[in-house]
């Protein structure tokens, strides 16, 4: 029985608005903790303060986005009850379990994200690192539980219908033994990495294009783009799986996605075009492709919209355009991912064009995400529970939906403003100096001593610096170490006691361990560390000269990487030779994964 509700469409819009605001934040909830943990793990492995700075800054963004997600998620959970009370009343006993579990997952996430974000410098390094894991797990679990409810709405099972209400309920199997749910969830899971990765990468690509080409920006771009590029091409496969599940379990939705009016054997696929109520016009027709895609058989029968009466058909063009938008953007993102992977594995630089594409990919991935959700939600119309309960039967009878809609819009606008301000503020916090530069006092002290120019400075061969220069260098570096709390770094090393004992000096040379500065540079592999401490001396000049073509000033040369061919070389970070060299060399020396 339909509820007497004049503002049903507004109620749907309100729900859609809330979902569209919340879902991109969910992506950050799923993917961001993993990226932050990766950065912290790299820091723990390499001791490179750059990764520490990266993880700390990202954890702040993560916390801010989580807080916003709490607001939007709370609004959303209230809306489910306030806007669709009949749905809650009749079927809450089936899907309520999902939201219960999600509640616990959310609390877990909230607790540990607090510990993680405020625990920097205050917890032992390993404990802090471990405290991030529940955040990552809860991010995955929370979205899993919520999407299990959505999967159930798309493919309801696990109950019998008595007087329009669910009875004899099997909540576990209804939610989790639902074939529709798993493809939907995995699709969303990969989408989370794509959206989170490309949005982050877009910000750093923009920074690079604007001339901020420090190691920090390039490393952050590398991590976020790697995540997005690894996920984007694979999403094509997952999407194929999800689409076949739709074809099997929700034939009307598939027909709407493809604009297929009548049941057809060997159905054709139409790209673009417009559905005029009978067929797709002005589109590009590819014969038999739809049958092939949907059922892996070019002659398969694809059911059309005509299997249900017109009143049970979703708005075809909305669904179809959303679907094509998602697929189109998704394909482009997959291509961009492949291009990036190719360039990266071939050790090529990123042309400006690719950077611009990455900048565009961030917002586009959000568009694709929302378009995908429009496809699945509008494609289910007019049902709230597919083939069981209509949206018009589930809606509230309250008459003040426009008031709520207006209030909600204002709240979201305010929220958007707040997010913008917070992210801007976070972005403006200057990087800790050791994350971008070699520590200046150390360099200054070292430059003043002639001893450092000796040929014997090969970092790995004899580990170091001798005589007076060594002592001064140490003092300078210790001063540098005092500038920031050394606590964490110490703990880092403490976490690996095995290393501490068997890393004795080589070939009777003094242990580097006893020479190097405490704190700041602890745990930095030798090559990089000496690079840090190294002045701009004769040895450095010689190395640059000798190795220039292969590695050295790649960044400073610029050509073919970030600058267009034929342009004069532009130093990355101004004329500062140590910084420019550091950018190129430190990275090259960074140890790889397979220790």
């Amino acid at each position, binding site marked *: 029985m339909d509820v007497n509700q004049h503002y049903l469409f507004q109620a749907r819009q309100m729900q859609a608005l809330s979902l569209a605001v919340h879902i991109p934040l969910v992506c950050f909830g799923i993917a961001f903790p993993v990226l932050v943990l990766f950065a912290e793990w790299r820091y723990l492995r390499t*001791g490179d303060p750059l990764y520490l700075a990266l993880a700390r800054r990202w954890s702040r963004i993560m916390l801010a986005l989580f807080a916003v997600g709490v607001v939007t998620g709370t609004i959303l959970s209230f809306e489910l009850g306030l806007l669709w009370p009949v749905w809650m009343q009749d079927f809450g*006993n089936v899907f*309520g*379990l999902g939201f219960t*579990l999600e*509640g*616990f997952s959310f609390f*877990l996430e909230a607790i540990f994200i*607090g*510990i993680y974000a405020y*625990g920097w*410098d*205050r917890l032992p390094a390993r404990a802090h690192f471990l405290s991030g894991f*529940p955040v990552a797990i809860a991010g995955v679990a929370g979205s899993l539980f919520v999407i299990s409810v959505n999967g159930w709405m798309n493919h309801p099972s696990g109950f019998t219908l008595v007087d329009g209400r669910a009875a004899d*309920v099997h909540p576990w199997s209804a939610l989790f033994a639902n074939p529709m749910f*798993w493809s939907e969830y*995995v699709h969303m899971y990969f989408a989370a990495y794509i959206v989170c990765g490309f949005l982050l990468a877009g910000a750093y690509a923009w920074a690079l294009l604007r001339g901020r080409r420090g*190691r920090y920006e390039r490393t952050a771009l590398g991590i976020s*783009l*790697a995540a997005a*590029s*690894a996920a984007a091409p*694979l999403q094509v*496969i997952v999407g194929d799986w999800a689409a076949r599940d739709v074809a099997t379990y929700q034939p009307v939705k598939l027909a709407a996605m493809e604009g297929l009016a009548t049941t057809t054997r060997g159905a054709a696929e139409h790209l673009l075009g417009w559905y005029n109520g009978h067929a797709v016009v002005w589109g590009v027709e590819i014969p038999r492709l739809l049958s092939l895609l949907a059922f*892996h058989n070019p002659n398969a029968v694809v059911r059309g919209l005509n299997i249900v009466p017109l009143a049970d058909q979703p708005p075809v063009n909305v669904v179809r355009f959303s679907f094509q938008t998602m697929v189109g953007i998704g394909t482009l993102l997959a291509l961009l991912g492949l291009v990036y992977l190719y360039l990266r594995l071939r*050790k090529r630089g990123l042309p400006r064009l690719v950077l611009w594409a990455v900048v565009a990919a961030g917002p586009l991935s959000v568009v694709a995400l929302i378009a995908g959700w429009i496809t699945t939600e509008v494609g289910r119309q007019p049902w709230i529970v597919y083939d069981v309960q209509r949206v018009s039967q589930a809606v509230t009878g*309250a*008459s003040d939906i426009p008031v709520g809609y207006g209030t909600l819009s204002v709240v979201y606008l305010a929220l958007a403003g707040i997010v913008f301000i917070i992210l801007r503020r976070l972005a403006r916090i200057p990087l800790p100096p050791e994350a971008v530069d070699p520590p200046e006092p150390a360099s200054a002290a070292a430059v003043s001593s002639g001893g450092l120019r000796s040929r014997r400075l090969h*970092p*790995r061969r004899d*580990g170091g610096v001798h005589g007076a220069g060594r002592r001064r260098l*140490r003092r300078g570096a*210790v001063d540098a170490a005092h500038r920031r*709390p*050394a606590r964490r770094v*110490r703990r*880092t*090393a403490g976490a690996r006691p095995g*290393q501490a004992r*068997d*890393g*004795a000096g*080589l070939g009777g040379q*003094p*242990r*580097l*361990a*006893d020479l*190097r500065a*405490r*704190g700041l540079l*602890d*745990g930095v592999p030798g090559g990089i560390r000496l690079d840090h401490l190294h002045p701009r001396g004769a040895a450095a000049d010689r190395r640059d000269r000798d190795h220039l073509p292969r590695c050295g000033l790649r960044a400073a040369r610029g050509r073919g990487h970030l600058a267009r061919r034929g342009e004069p070389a532009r130093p990355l970070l101004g004329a500062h030779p140590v910084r420019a060299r550091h950018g190129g060399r430190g*990275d*090259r020396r*960074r*140890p*790889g*994964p*397979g220790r």
Partner: protein
Amino acid sequence: VLTPFALGTAVGAIAVGRVPVGNAAGNQLTSWLSPAPVLVGALAVAFSGYLAAVYLAADSVRYGEAALAAGFRRRALVAGVVSGGLALAGLLVMRGAGLNLTHGAALALVCVSGAAGLATLALCWASRFGLARLTAALAVAAVVVGWAAAQAPRLLPGMTVTQAAAGTSTLVALVIAVGCGLVVLVPSLALLYALFLRGRLDTPESHAAGAAPVAPPGETARPGTGAASTPIPGPGATAGMPGGAVRSTGVRDAGARLGAVPLSALALTGLVAGAGLLVFADAPWAHALGVAGLVLCAVTVFALTAMRPGD
């Protein structure tokens, strides 16, 4: 202020039976904007202020802020008196509006609440805030439980709890879910409170003193002596790490070069297996394996690209 007020009015509206069963069946304004619900709303605000003052007073003592503690003590006393007065008024108003709190279990709980409230006032007066936190919480909790006791078994007018409850299987599933959830949540909360109450998550200033003293190593350990002879254990434990790093840098580089090949093979395996199982198989287990393959592929590709030296 709005949040507890709105919550209180909603509770009040339910308690006095102004929320009928049905889809938007009650009046949208008068059901919660009548004297009894508004009084409960005010009571909720007073309770919040009271609890906040008591707890913050205890925190102020912990931080050694005597002036702040005195201020919160005064506010706790005032809010406590106001809450008590409102609660007494609520008893009468509620009785008039149809919720009888003055018999049976409800009366006992109201008495508990009153006693706990008085105890809190006395403890606050004596500046014993640690204990006052418990009694304050008890006073408020007793009122809430008393409301439930007075209303039982009615949930809404014409609907009992039994009628509103879901089927057994759902309830069992929920109990299991809540049980499992609590098993995870309670230790997490305990950890959080432990960290907070021990000041581990306090402002960095309070810990700067602990973090700063890092002994310059060269002054205490001569070159050539092992890490074990370093007198300060903290730095001593770290002393070997750079040495180890130096030793293994070459190994790591080689490892990175070698590791790339197996990693690529792993990624390719994951891709082929994942794509094959997802695209061509239909069984759920095959799809599960396929997803695992794709995730494996994604992780290895990520590892290959994100950890490669050079940007």
